[in-house]
């Protein structure tokens, strides 16, 4: 980000812990995409996702002195975001279809796959149970391995593996059922120029 001091994350953490709001804002900017994306894919609503992501950072500000390192910060943010999202999904009624469609097409970079397949995958993801959805997001959005996912969600490793296996099977089956020509997914994936 232009105009932002080139401090390491460790320095930013120290300064934010000491009450430096500018350092805290820099931390927010560094992690906002990850937190917002997790919120968005969990809740499937832009406004709720933005609200949730802001709440996560407010909570971070209050507890920043308990965050010990950069690695701990990323872990803390993912865990709090997913837990808060699951809590919201339990508390609040399902979203309308209008809100769901609004959540599409917000990715930061152009898609590498067919936009129709992309929208379909996101829609199918929303049909997964919240815990399974969180596992898939942490695996394919945050690129965590199953052990890290288990630690983040405080879930047994076998449960994580089982969620991944069943979710992928369900997604593959649903996509296969919808493809009348029986094409493989590879043929749907094409680079946009």
């Amino acid at each position, binding site marked *: 980000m232009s105009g932002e001091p080139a401090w390491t994350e460790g320095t930013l953490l120290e300064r934010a*812990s000491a*009450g430096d*709001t500018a350092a*805290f*804002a820099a931390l*927010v*900017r560094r992690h*906002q*995409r*990850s937190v*917002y*994306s997790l919120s*968005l*894919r969990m809740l499937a609503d832009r406004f709720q*996702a*933005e609200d949730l*992501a*802001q709440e996560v*950072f*407010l909570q971070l*500000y*209050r*507890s*920043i*002195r*308990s965050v010990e390192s950069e690695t701990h910060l990323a872990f803390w943010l993912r865990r709090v975001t997913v837990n808060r999202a699951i809590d919201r999904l339990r508390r609040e009624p399902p979203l309308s279809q209008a809100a769901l469609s609004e959540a599409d097409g*917000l*990715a*930061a*970079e152009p*898609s*590498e*796959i067919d936009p129709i*397949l*992309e929208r379909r*995958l*996101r829609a199918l*993801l929303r049909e997964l149970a919240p815990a399974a959805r969180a596992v*898939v*997001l942490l695996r*394919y*959005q945050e*690129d965590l391995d199953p052990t890290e996912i288990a630690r983040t969600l405080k879930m047994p490793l076998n449960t994580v593996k089982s969620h991944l296996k069943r979710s*992928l099977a369900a*997604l*593959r089956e649903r*996509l296969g059922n919808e493809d009348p020509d029986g094409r*493989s*997914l*590879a043929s*749907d*994936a094409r680079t946009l120029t």
Partner: protein
Amino acid sequence: MSDERNNRDLERSLRAALRPADPGEGFAAGVLARLATDPARAPRPRLSRATASWLAFAAAASVVLGLFVAHQRQVLRTEQGLEARRQLIQALRVTGEKLELASRAVNTSERSTDSSHSGA
């Protein structure tokens, strides 16, 4: 083999579909604005290890001091009790001696009165 390939393709498609989304320019400013109106905004103080050690030491010292003071009070009370007992015994002894003297004086006086009567 085909399943494996399909899995790989699906995973690749998922990664592409789930690439990070941007919350927009004003997101961090929004967080700071909410922070400014947040009643519980102050970061919770985290004690440094040295401060925590000092506090633990101070708490332990307070307990030890409290026990010591309580013990001293108990010792003082016991000593005061013993002193009071000693004084009471002393007072009883003095009283006893006085009574003894008085008794003797009375007896001597009675005897001399009797002998003067019998002599007359």
